[in-house]
């Protein structure tokens, strides 16, 4: 039974169809890549999944504890609550806040005290704040960022900012994590490191991951299955070797490089 089922997803902006009749199935625990040339509609596809855009037609279903939930057309915060979290292609951290605050904000939906507790500082407030801090630090440990928890996010080196974005997304406790070009702007060394971490968090946190990536080597190396988007249409899907040898993919995408 698949965790995410996307069927006939279509999005048009006026006359332009950015995504057309796209299908996708992701099983629990998979690590899936979504590739495609520039302007193929990858980010639009992500924005549809996460509720930033409402689809023109089609359905997106997420399996939450055995129950299929239609998430297309829901607001982003609602989608996140159901269990889908994301990072952004162009980093969108809360850049003037501390590392710790970035994480604590993402944990907001799991905080268990109400406005009166916040205003009058009940015991519950103190207990929950303690818990938040502890859990945030545990998450930061994954990328060895704990010692930087009081730094302002924008002062971190670029690679760490990308890491922080992943941690922040994980802090919402997702079942499916969407990474939008996580290696963009990284050097080969950093990319290798990132690759390892992505695989690691998938195993340790029992996550399912969908990533958009330009860096083909990264996708081929860690993804179990790959979807290829071209001009808004899914033109192929399969194991990395299959994709490598797929004629349409080579024409559409690899053709540029080969």
């Amino acid at each position: 039974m698949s965790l995410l089922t996307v069927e006939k997803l279509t999005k048009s902006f006026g006359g332009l169809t950015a995504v057309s009749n796209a299908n996708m199935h992701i099983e629990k625990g998979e690590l899936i890549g979504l590739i495609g040339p520039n302007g193929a509609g990858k980010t639009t596809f992500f924005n549809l999944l996460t509720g930033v855009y409402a689809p023109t037609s089609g359905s997106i279903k997420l399996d939450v504890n055995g129950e299929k939930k239609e998430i297309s057309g829901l607001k982003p915060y609602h989608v996140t609550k159901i269990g889908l979290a994301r990072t952004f292609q162009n980093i969108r951290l809360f850049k003037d806040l501390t590392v710790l605050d970035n994480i604590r904000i993402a944990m907001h939906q799991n905080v268990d005290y109400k406005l009166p507790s916040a205003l009058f500082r009940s015991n519950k407030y103190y207990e929950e704040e303690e818990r938040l801090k502890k859990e945030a630090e545990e998450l930061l440990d994954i990328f060895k960022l704990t010692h930087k928890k009081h730094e302002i996010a924008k002062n971190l080196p670029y690679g760490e900012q990308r890491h922080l974005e992943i941690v922040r997304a994980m802090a919402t406790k997702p079942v499916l994590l969407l990474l939008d070009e996580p290696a963009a702007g990284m050097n080969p060394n950093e990319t290798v490191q990132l690759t390892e971490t992505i695989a690691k968090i998938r195993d340790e946190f029992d996550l399912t991951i969908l990533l958009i990536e330009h860096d083909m080597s990264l996708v081929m190396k860690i993804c179990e299955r790959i979807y290829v988007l071209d001009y808004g249409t899914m033109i192929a899907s399969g194991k990395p070797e299959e994709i490598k040898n797929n004629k349409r993919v080579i024409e559409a995408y690899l053709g540029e490089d080969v």
Partner: protein
Amino acid sequence: MKVLNKRNILTLIIIVAIYALVQVLITTKVISSFYEITIATICINIILAVSLNLVTGFTGQFSLGHAGFMSIGAYAGALVNMSMKSTTGFLIGIILGAIVAAIVGIIIGIPTLRLKGDYLAIATLGMAEIIRVVFLNMEITNGAAGLNGIPRFTNWLWLYVFTVLTLILISNFVKSSQGRACISIREDEIAAESMGINTTRYKVMAFALGAFFAGIAGALYSSYFYFINPTMFGFQKSIDILVIVVFGGLGSMTGSVIAAVLLAVITTLLQSLSSLRMIIYALLLIVIMLFRPQGLLGTKEITDMFKFGKKYERVE
């Protein structure tokens, strides 16, 4: 009770000490009744500025209609207090004024807070103008003539109690998960929403809280100055409040407090130059923005400066 920790108890002692000190100065006439007005203005402006700062500085929602909420509190408070001339009536008036202002804040906030930046500013300005015109045309508020002979119950004790209460509650709010949700909207609304934050809900929450405290300020104001009319709560008043917030630093509560004090002192000093007063005020505004556009403190708090040593031990 975890709220009774060392830091909070120390703060409480300081709060009580400041109260006692000023009370002694007033009783012994070191502070004359002329300067008492300045003190009242400062307290009311602190409440107004800090509550607007919650909306504009912390949540990033640009409001130019804060005086509208203040006027609701002022009228509600005055009307209750005029029919119930006792301290109980005064307090009921304040609470009622605050609640009505908050409700109006929610009603106004839900449709307008989806607007951004300048558009929101102009919409809130319009809302405040509509509130003013409604007061201008209502019978119970006595139209343009306004309400006269409002009993005075606002004194140093109540001014201080409500100012401190406002500061504590808003400070608690911005250091809570709900407050962080508001701050995240200011930082990046799209990212905030992607992190599971219902941005509309928290914008409206900040707006309603801001309106609530502006209502308190309004009720204190009407009870201190005996007399109110709709003209007092026009566009100009909203601007005055915004100027305090920006001057102190958007997102800095202590900045708002310092700016409220400084501007009140400057206004008092300029009193004798009546005709030049507004020109100097305007020039000051321009010069401050040209040389320190982030305000006195930016987003920092003055208390941050005393915490360097303990920076990493802090709970918040």
